[in-house]
């Protein structure tokens, strides 16, 4: 065993000890396990990102998460066992075959949620151009629109008023809406790049221009996105309003 590998295992063991003890066995089927979409392009440029996000979710919230994400193929059976999907890419994507597009469309129409993340920070080219083409074909009746600052997404757990990510390409998120619900959420700021953390505990990428504060915001946004996927507009219920207004003031 090489020294580096040994140190990595040691660090992972220490991290495991630091996890809170829930005292109850939660079946995997009852956990939040994000399905990462395998596509024809570079589909997994940030392999540790979702593992770290799920770990942070377990640390910060009552959401029970799996150890890591699961890769899913849109055309394969079992897609609906992962109501929350993550589609990330670095560079252009080939067009999705129509059966895969139909499967993803059905997933979203029946209540699924898709987070799309541009790892390459592209804007008008590369992943951005490809995924906009795919999303337009996916839900032609629901164009990508900016998510308003007042949307419940920005208060589903943390009270947020700015974006996070490895980059700051766009100070907003975009979304496609089905029946008033955000079904597809698109970030051009490489959220996964901010979440990715190596086994030795070092962040894999620097966040620019905001540094660690921008990374923390990326995690908080990730937490809010997961909360939104699981609770939808719960924080828009009237009972929360006075508390949120007080804290925002």
């Amino acid at each position: 065993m090489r020294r580096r590998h040994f140190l990595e295992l040691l660090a992972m063991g220490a991290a495991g000890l630091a996890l809170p003890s829930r005292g109850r066995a939660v079946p995997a089927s009852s956990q939040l396990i994000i399905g990462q979409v395998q596509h024809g392009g570079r589909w997994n440029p940030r392999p540790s990102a979702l593992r770290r996000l799920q770990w942070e979710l377990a640390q910060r919230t009552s959401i029970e998460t799996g150890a890591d994400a699961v890769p899913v193929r849109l055309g394969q059976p079992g897609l609906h066992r992962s109501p929350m999907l993550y589609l990330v890419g670095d560079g252009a994507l080939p067009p999705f075959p129509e059966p895969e597009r139909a499967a993803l469309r059905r997933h979203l129409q029946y209540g699924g949620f898709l987070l799309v993340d541009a790892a390459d920070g592209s804007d008008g080219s590369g992943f951005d151009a490809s995924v906009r083409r795919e999303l337009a074909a996916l839900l032609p009746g629901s164009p990508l629109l900016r998510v308003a600052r007042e949307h419940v997404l920005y208060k589903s757990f943390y009270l947020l008023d700015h974006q996070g990510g490895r980059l700051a390409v766009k100070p907003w998120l975009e979304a496609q809406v089905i029946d008033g619900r955000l079904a597809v959420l698109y970030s051009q700021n490489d959220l996964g790049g901010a979440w990715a953390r190596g086994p030795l505990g070092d962040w894999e990428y620097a966040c620019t221009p905001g540094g660690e504060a921008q990374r923390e915001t990326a995690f908080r946004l990730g937490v809010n996105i997961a909360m939104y996927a699981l609770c939808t507009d719960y924080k828009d219920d009237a009972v929360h309003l006075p508390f949120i207004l007080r804290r925002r003031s």
Partner: protein
Amino acid sequence: MEGYNAWRLTSLAPWPRWALAVLVLAAVAAVALAWRGLRGEPRPGRRAALLALRAASAVLTLFLLVEPALRLLQTSRVKSRLAVLVDASRSMRFPVEPGGRTRAEAAAAFVGRHRGELEALGDRVSLEWHTFERDLAPADPAALVRGAPPRGGRTDLLGALKAAAGGGTGRKLAGAVVLSDGADNAALAEGLTPATRAELRALGMPVTAIAVGTGSPKDLALERVAVDDFAFVRNTVTVEVGLTVRGFGREEVPIVLRREGAVVARGAVRLEPGQERYTVPLSFVPDTTGTFVFTVAAPVFPGEAVAENNSRSFVLRVIRDRVRVLLVAGRPSWDERFLRTLLKQDPNIDLISFYILRTATDQPGSQDELSLIPFPVAEIFGEQLRTFDAVLFVNFAYQPYRSLDIERFLPALRDYVRNGGGFAMLGGEQSFGEARYGSTALAEVLPLESPEAAGIATGAARPRLTPEGLRHPVTSLAAGDAPNEAAWAALPPLPAVNRTRALPPGSGARVLLDAPAVPVDGRAAPLVAVREVGSGRALAVATDASWHWGFVAAEDLGSSRAYQHFWNNALRWLVRDPSLTPVQVEPDRPAVEPGEPVGLSISVRAPDYGPGAGAPVQGELVGEDGQVVARGEAVAGPDGTAHLELTPPGPGAYKVVATARPRCGSGPCPPDAPIERATGAVAVRASGPEDADAAPRPELLRAVAQATGGTFSSAEAGLPEVRLTDPEVVEVGRRKDLPIWDRGWFLAALVGTLAAEWVLRRRWGYW
């Protein structure tokens, strides 16, 4: 002429009218032609003579053609009628003045004193004696003098006058004498309106009104209760109580509103001298749905004329505007997410949610940067609990939150179910035995036994309908046993099932779905179970993966309808949606008068939700003391409905209880066929309109007399002038026509005028 006392001119000509008109026109034309031909005559004397001769000829010709005659008639004057109407309504039981004789006695004495004067009018009119209240009835004047007990439940003066005017075999009513206290509670209840004034005038006769009773007895009456027929649960209902108070000093009168014995609102009114009418608003918030009898009551004070009018009952149907559901989730999960989405989509559901988003061990950062709110345990499980129609625990444990001490509210939640609430527990690692609910008060209402730390079975558990699940509305995904079983069999298996046990028979619990792949003590683990406890209902779904029946099923089946169907059924069953009730009962009227029977329509649904034709039904009236006071039985007709009439023993509020065996409609009735039950309410009024206001209304009688051109007096002052219309003149007997045209000199005159004109014209050079 002998025997004839009248005559008039008539025509004996057989011509129709149009022919006569043509003749007249021809005569006019003949005169006009003569005038036209004489325009050039310079000598006016000649012109006038010729025109006169032509006109005379025309008139004589017409006279002969019309054949005039003298009609001799034998006529006589016919007596019109005079109706004497004596009030026989119950208000005549009240004293003329406080402590005095009754109005009925005063009326009898008046008839005794003035009967002779009235009968003296017999040479002009034919005298008729009646009593009146709701209807008009002929009466014997001797009996009126003796005084008959007044029993009528209503006073309808205008109706009585109309009935009197319409009677008499066509003979005209020349007038009416009304002897009454004027306490009309029909068309004239609000006094004379333009419409009623016009109706009185249309009678065409003067009314002589004699008021009986001048002073108002001491009385407090709940004269009016204004409230809608239905109200929304948990919404404030305001009942407006109208009081009429007479003979009281400055006093404060407490008013209470009771729902089937329990006080739900109180109010008071401060009496002021000179003011007789008061309105008291009583507000309350109904907390449960159903049909209830409410009673407004004021105390009975010493010396009051009528005690019965101090309370009034009415029936109010309390319905839900929207089903109010409390959803408490132990943590965000897909089970919670899909259920919330489903419930939020239903516009009839008002969803209140509380999710535990962080635990004590979670480290999200500063509280000020979070949108989290404190869990208002005391509020939702305490004061607000009864406002919910159903409470759903989605993988929610009570123990982890020590500071909140949720366990102390579990008995209240148990009682909430027993008292009519709906409760559902959904599975997960924080539910059932995993959360040790089996040792809490909630276990007394849960439909499953929750062995402690029995664990969660993972794998593929396919749900199986039990025999009871086949028929139960909660697990009815399709009509009919086989389609229903097929619908369940097509659903994807569940990946996790909480290990629980079925409750023993007799507990009222039923397992509807089980999981053969998950054995517990050698038997298939229950998956869905229901229980009726007290008047409430509980549901257990021993998995946190019911969303697989929707979202996961949609991948294979292309539909999530089974999931929607199941949860819609479950919620409707929990909140006792009327459309799922196998027996329903509806009184024909919410309130009846004393002595009237109560009509009940009882409808029965068969287990397949079709009409329960042939099912035996039973209806009961239950008094406020819980005793059955009337009972009846019937058999549902082809439409599943039976009608019963039960007679309550007296005024008051009655609960209506209908029971039926819907499974006994066709074929032999199995001994274990369940008895289904439905309840309603009906009120028997303690006081009718006659008792509501004991005050006499002489001013109304005066107004009636004035409107009809009659006279008014009080009984003490005696009989005033009785005005009558002129008697009607009608023909009777013989008639005879004497022709007057067939005299010879009329013809001679005509020949003479024609000849004279001819001669003169020739002489003066016109021909």
